[in-house]
């Protein structure tokens, strides 16, 4: 068994009066590719944001490498955990390269400028995401797919051993969507980084990830190997809808096919 990276114990989290996470417990293991799925409003994004302290969770509920997350300095945390937010329409007036350099912030010391390590990390990030040709483009001029690739590159440049992603491919066309998942797989396999991604695409979760966690009403409804999600009507109970599965022609996994009424 691999080491536990995140140990979430009995985590509850509310916005004003609405409780989003309810005594949620989950362990995330080093080197895993974990997909977090679940119906809208089940708390997926909130959970991810708690893991990087965008939302401050109650004390001693989330442990990262055996330390309560709130005890870790934000910069040190960011040096170990990278994050890709949900696709945003907001514009940034930086070039892709400048944007990646900003992701090196956790490694910068205040009185020295950019080091060769930083430059190397940025070059590698552009390389592994095949986006070297975008380096000097303004972020505002990139297409949705290109922009998302740069975000993934920035998470890679940030250098964390964990990459958290919030719906990395939701608004992309099928080609770009597949590209994103392929790159994540490559990053996961080549560098053995832990990948935790929130997604609505159950098939990608089944095909690409090792494990799946299914959230419903702020609790973990299922956690296990990704191909087990199609068993025992787990999905049907969670989403309140019937699913039909077929075997994927290449490989052994069952995937969902669209229902025809």
């Amino acid at each position: 068994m691999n080491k536990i990276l995140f140990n979430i114990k009995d985590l509850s989290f509310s916005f004003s009066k609405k409780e989003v996470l309810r005594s949620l417990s989950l362990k995330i293991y080093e080197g895993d590719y974990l997909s977090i799925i679940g119906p809208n409003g089940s708390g997926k994004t909130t959970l991810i944001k708690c893991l990087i302290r965008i939302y401050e969770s109650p004390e001693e509920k989330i442990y990262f490498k055996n330390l309560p997350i709130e005890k870790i300095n934000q910069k040190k945390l960011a040096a170990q955990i990278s994050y890709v937010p949900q696709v945003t329409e907001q514009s940034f007036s930086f070039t892709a390269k400048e944007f990646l350099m900003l992701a090196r912030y956790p490694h910068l010391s205040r009185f020295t400028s950019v080091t060769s390590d930083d430059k190397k990390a940025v070059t590698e990030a552009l390389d592994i995401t095949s986006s070297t040709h975008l380096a000097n483009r303004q972020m505002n001029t990139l297409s949705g797919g290109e922009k998302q690739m740069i975000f993934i590159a920035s998470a890679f440049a940030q250098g964390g051993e964990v990459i958290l992603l919030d719906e990395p491919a939701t608004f992309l066309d099928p080609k770009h969507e597949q590209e994103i998942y392929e790159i994540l797989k490559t990053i996961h396999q080549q560098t053995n980084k832990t990948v935790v991604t929130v997604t609505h695409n159950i098939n990608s979760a089944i095909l690409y990830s090792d494990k799946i966690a299914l959230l419903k009403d702020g609790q973990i409804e299922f956690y296990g190997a990704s191909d087990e999600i199609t068993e025992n009507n787990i999905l049907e109970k969670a989403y309140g809808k019937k699913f039909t599965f077929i075997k994927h022609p290449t490989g052994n996994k069952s995937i969902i096919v669209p229902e025809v009424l």
Partner: protein
Amino acid sequence: MIKSKKLILLFFSAFALLVISLTPFIGMETIPFETILNFDSTNIKTDIFWRLRVPRVLIAFVAGSALAISGMTFQAMFRNSLATPFTLGVSSGAAFGAALYVKLGIIFSFLGIVGQTIFAFVGALISIIIIYTLSKIKRGFSVGTMLLAGVAINFFFSSFILFIQFMSDFTESFSIMRWLMGGFEIIGYSDIYNILPFIIIGSAIIIFLSTELNLLTLGEDIAISRGVSVSKIKNTLFIATSLMVSGVISVVGPIGFVGMMIPHISRLIIGSDHRYLVFLNIIVGGAFLILCDTLARTLIAPAEIPVGVITALLGGPFFIWLLINNSNDDSSI
């Protein structure tokens, strides 16, 4: 890329130096170069030059720089070009504090800081706390909400200022009103010494945090995830801006729009990297306000136009232009 940014800074520094050294010669009384070194006590022109015009030009520079980088900081923190200490009501909070001090007629100083500056600082802080609380309660509130909150805060403090004026006699009232228009008429060196510590500390903090400002323009979520302790940094920046804005306002009155126009123009010139942007703002902001003040004291000489009127005449249309552009692209930072 970086080289060209340094060249830009060099070019504008030279321009600012030129502005600083030439404008004191211009005015109702044109001063020939040879007289400025003639310290013959009977020479009134030397006196005008050293006692009136030079300190005036210097304080205009300091005030312009401070207003510009305060504006830049607000724009980065709120991720919007329309968010400045002036539009969000911080200036009117400071103005209220300073006006209240005038009306109360108490004269005190603390650690060598004049009471009016301290009152202005408290006023600025109150506005900032209101804005800050609003942005906390309504997480991710829209530009519209934010500007309306600014309008409300402005109304709130303006009515207090009106009330103070109403309670004052004619002379007091006139002097408050004249001060509210902003201007550099009766500036001496002591005023510069008085506010310089505020400006230096405030600017130093902002320069020191310029990388954090870059990350804040990406949005708070991304900034946090990249390791910025956002609340701590924002609090520090709020205090730094309050220090500068209140320092400037307590001496020269609430001069508007510099903090909106200069950062925007500077960004068009040198880009969004705050490590360079902050210096361009200092240089251009300072030079700009000196030029405005030179216009203010020469256009209808021997009378003077309050410099705040000049900046507002330029700033009003600029604001509308930004508003139109902003609606197309919600985050023009």
